[in-house]
């Protein structure tokens, strides 16, 4: 299993040495993707049916960023040439990230909540357990977009 101590010393770390061209090509691809992402951002795209163009722009920007990240991880960070354990670690980190982003489902479904808050007796508030603005005049000064309103108008 192990080489002789002398061999281990002389062939110290014969790791997979890549040609510098791999790195040059990766860098050029990264530049191209960067130019693409800046260019696309100047053109708000038209939507497709129920999906707004804005949404598509965001998706493209994130998609290009993910592609750039993949290139950096695979080639600059040598993960493509790493062991499976290393690849598992990388996958674990980004899997965690996607799982955590499901927190947004909580905020997205708050308008469906029926839970009463502790402020039931107060007439100017809607009995919500959600953060309320402190302005009792009825004006939603701190929430003009109404994201905290139940039910949504």
């Amino acid at each position: 299993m192990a080489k002789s101590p002398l061999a281990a010393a002389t062939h110290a770390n014969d790791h997979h040495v890549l040609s510098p061209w791999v790195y040059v090509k990766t860098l050029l691809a990264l530049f191209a993707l960067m130019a693409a992402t800046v260019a696309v951002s100047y053109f708000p795209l038209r939507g497709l049916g129920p999906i707004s163009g804005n949404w598509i722009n965001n998706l493209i920007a994130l998609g290009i960023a993910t592609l750039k990240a993949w290139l950096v991880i695979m080639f600059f960070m040598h993960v493509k040439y790493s062991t499976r354990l290393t690849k598992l670690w990388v996958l674990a980190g980004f899997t965690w990230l996607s799982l955590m982003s499901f927190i947004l489902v909580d905020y997205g479904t708050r308008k469906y909540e029926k839970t009463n808050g502790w402020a039931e007796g107060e007439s100017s508030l809607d009995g919500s357990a959600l953060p309320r603005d402190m302005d009792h005049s009825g004006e939603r000064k701190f929430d003009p977009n109404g994201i905290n309103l139940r039910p949504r108008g």
Partner: protein
Amino acid sequence: MSHAMHGPTPHGATHAEGPLHHQFEDIDQQNESYIVGMWTFLVTEVMFFGVLFLTYTLYRWAYPMDFYLSHEHLSIPMGAGNTVVLLISSFTMVMAVHFAQLKQRMWVLKMLVATIGLAGVFLVVKYFEYSSKFEQNLLPGPSFTMNPETLHGANLNHAQIFFGLYFAMTGLHAVHIIIGIGAMGVLGFLWQTKAKSVTEDFVPTEMVGLYWHFVDLVWIFLFPLMYLMPKPL
């Protein structure tokens, strides 16, 4: 199967057998342990930045117009320039690792100096970006501008959320750049003084490289999210 060596080796060093340490079976296992260890740290960094990205996503979802109006203060040329600078610095860093694998000390040092130099350029551009924000009173807090024209009509509090997140995320990123410069400085010092820990084994250089590429990764996501916002309908 014993790796223990007693007395001077042919190279004149005692107990040294190249980079392989005695607790590992072979060099591949050692490499894997180092790399997985570094990735463990990077996963914690993913968690560190990930929550900030989540917060940003949430508030941009809640207040898209206010965020768009606030982001107009950010200079896309400076952000794009910084992105290019960091991409090139990632390249010079991986070349430093490459030369470390080939044990070409002078080239490693040149590449490390280039990477540190590019990181310095990034920080200088950042300095100009931040100072223009401070001049316009865009730092959240008691000095935050009340001028609606400066805010481009955005809600005062929502603009503060945007700038709070902007300074927190880019500031934290800049702190990581500074730490990276320090790490590369230490690495450069070790290479300069021909320390065996780096000359015999390329993996320590690779580990600093991993950190630097991670810093680049964060910026790759920060730039389009904050600087290239499409106008909400």
